[in-house]
């Protein structure tokens, strides 16, 4: 028997085989097709509108890019949920877990290898959306704003935070399906509700991952305003409804995303490490 090998070598093995698993299954191809389809639909609509209308709607390339990237958060959420939702649950429901977790590998090593593989695949899938966005803006405006790099950086950070959350759910549930659905529900419905609560209450929703992710597009907006207050008239007696709209500063968005990433990686690692396999 060989001498015990270092965690780093085992991490590489976990990464390689998780990556292979993603590439083999419908998930990578499905996500890639999904993103390509969404991007193509947006591109076709823009082409149909023509250069004059597109440039009239969005005077600058940054505004056009910001509008195009409105769906990037959904793309990242769906990608992250499908890649991370079952990454740990697959071990906790028995079957493959009884093979893998009886190997002399620290669970944190398995976690790290799988997380990196999911992150790499997620970056590729989300990157396709960015490629379409950049190509469209180049076509209509003849230039691509440099701020797209900042947006890409924030999108990657958001992807990592989403994966951390998905891994957290994955460490809780034995069923990969339940884990994926829970992640999607929380990210697509739960967090947006939290953010909207801020709109009505006037409290900046810095606690919401969804709010932090808005920095991905707000970093491109030419007329960025952190807080907008508008009053909506209600009936004849002069009653008004005050609506607050917040947009995170880039640093603020990055901080929110980073905190989610760190907290949920720590939580999911702790749960995965101490979780017993009883199935």
């Amino acid at each position, binding site marked *: 028997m060989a001498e*015990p090998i270092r965690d780093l070598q085992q991490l590489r093995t976990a990464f390689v085989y998780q990556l292979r698993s993603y590439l083999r299954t419908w998930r990578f191809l499905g996500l890639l097709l999904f993103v390509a389809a969404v991007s193509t639909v947006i591109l076709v609509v823009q082409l149909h509108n023509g250069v004059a209308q597109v440039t009239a709607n969005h005077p600058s390339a940054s505004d056009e890019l910001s509008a195009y990237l409105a769906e990037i958060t959904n793309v990242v959420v769906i990608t992250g949920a499908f890649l991370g939702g079952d990454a740990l649950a697959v071990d906790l429901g028995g079957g493959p877990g009884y093979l893998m977790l*009886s190997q002399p590998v620290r669970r944190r090593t398995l976690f790290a290898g799988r997380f990196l593989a999911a992150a790499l695949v997620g970056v590729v899938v989300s990157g396709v959306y960015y490629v379409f966005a950049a190509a469209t803006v180049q076509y209509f405006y003849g230039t691509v704003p440099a701020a797209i790099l900042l947006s890409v950086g924030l999108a990657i950070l958001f992807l990592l935070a989403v994966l951390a959350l998905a891994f957290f759910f994955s460490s809780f549930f034995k069923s990969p399906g339940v884990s994926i659905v829970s992640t999607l529900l929380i990210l697509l419905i739960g967090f947006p509700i939290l953010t909207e609560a801020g709109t009505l209450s006037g409290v900046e929703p810095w606690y919401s991952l969804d709010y932090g992710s808005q920095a991905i597009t707000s970093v491109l907006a030419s007329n960025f305003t952190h807080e907008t207050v508008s009053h909506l008239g209600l009936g004849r007696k002069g009653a008004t409804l005050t609506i607050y709209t917040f947009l995170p500063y880039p640093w603020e968005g990055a901080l929110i995303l980073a905190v989610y990433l760190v907290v949920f990686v720590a939580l999911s690692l702790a749960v995965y490490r101490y979780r017993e396999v*009883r*199935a």
Partner: protein
Amino acid sequence: MPKLAAEGLTKRFASTTALDGASFRLEGGTAVGYLGPNGAGKTTTLKLFTGFLRPTAGHASINDQDVAADPKAALWEVGALVETPEPYPALTGRETLSMIGEFRGLSREQIRDGTERYANELELPPLDRRTARLSKGQRQRIVLAGVLLCEPTVLLLDEPTSGLDPAERVIIRNVLIRLKREGRLLLMSSHLLQEVTEICDRVIFINQGKILLEDSVANLESRFRVTRLEVEFARPVEAASLAAVPGVSAVEALGPTRYRLGFGGAEDDRSRILESCQKLAPVSSFSRASLGLEEAYLDLVRRAPLPPPPPPPR
């Protein structure tokens, strides 16, 4: 020398004590059967030794490494088949074996040679096929090949032939016998007492979470005498004639030519009964009706107090 030790090993699930202060120490190249009825605590013990569960109290150690404290070090020389391990369905059999080998630090050559070796010995299915497309028995043999690939000195096996067809059982039994002869330490749970008798040198009996007995198979075979014989004649024989045979205490007809006979259990008596039977009619088969191990098992299980009744439904 491979070592396996349980010291006051206890596992509780809510109000249920699955394992209650189990202690034993196994050393060297030997095969030990871990026997007990369903729910006795066998799988719980094996799960504690492989880190799937954490002990409520006590210690499980392998080669002097505490499993709960440092599972990586403790499991380094361990091959385990606990519950029903499955390969990842997206990977092929060859990739499954490579992955396990790489996790264990084997070189490419070692993995390739080991794969070829066990492909022959375990009659593995085509290794370039995804494991999702293989039968349960084929997947189980690939998992076993993965367990053996790294030449573990300690093997923890939870009913290793469960769910396999007779031919697959023979293949795996032969591999286990070879491993024991090579000086590996095997701890295997099984309900197949014939299999345990063939493979194991020692047995540990467990029931209701408590270790009841640890002894060698040879000792148990002599302590728990088989007191029933089965005899089959080439032509029908009167039961009354058999009852008159010296040494026969009871006769039970299993068919017109087959009988189960009660006797004292002594080897001499057995020989004399055979001689007498041959005088009645040609004997086509004559054997013990059970194994010594089976007698021991039944005796211990019967002596154990009944489990507490389940709590009333709310």
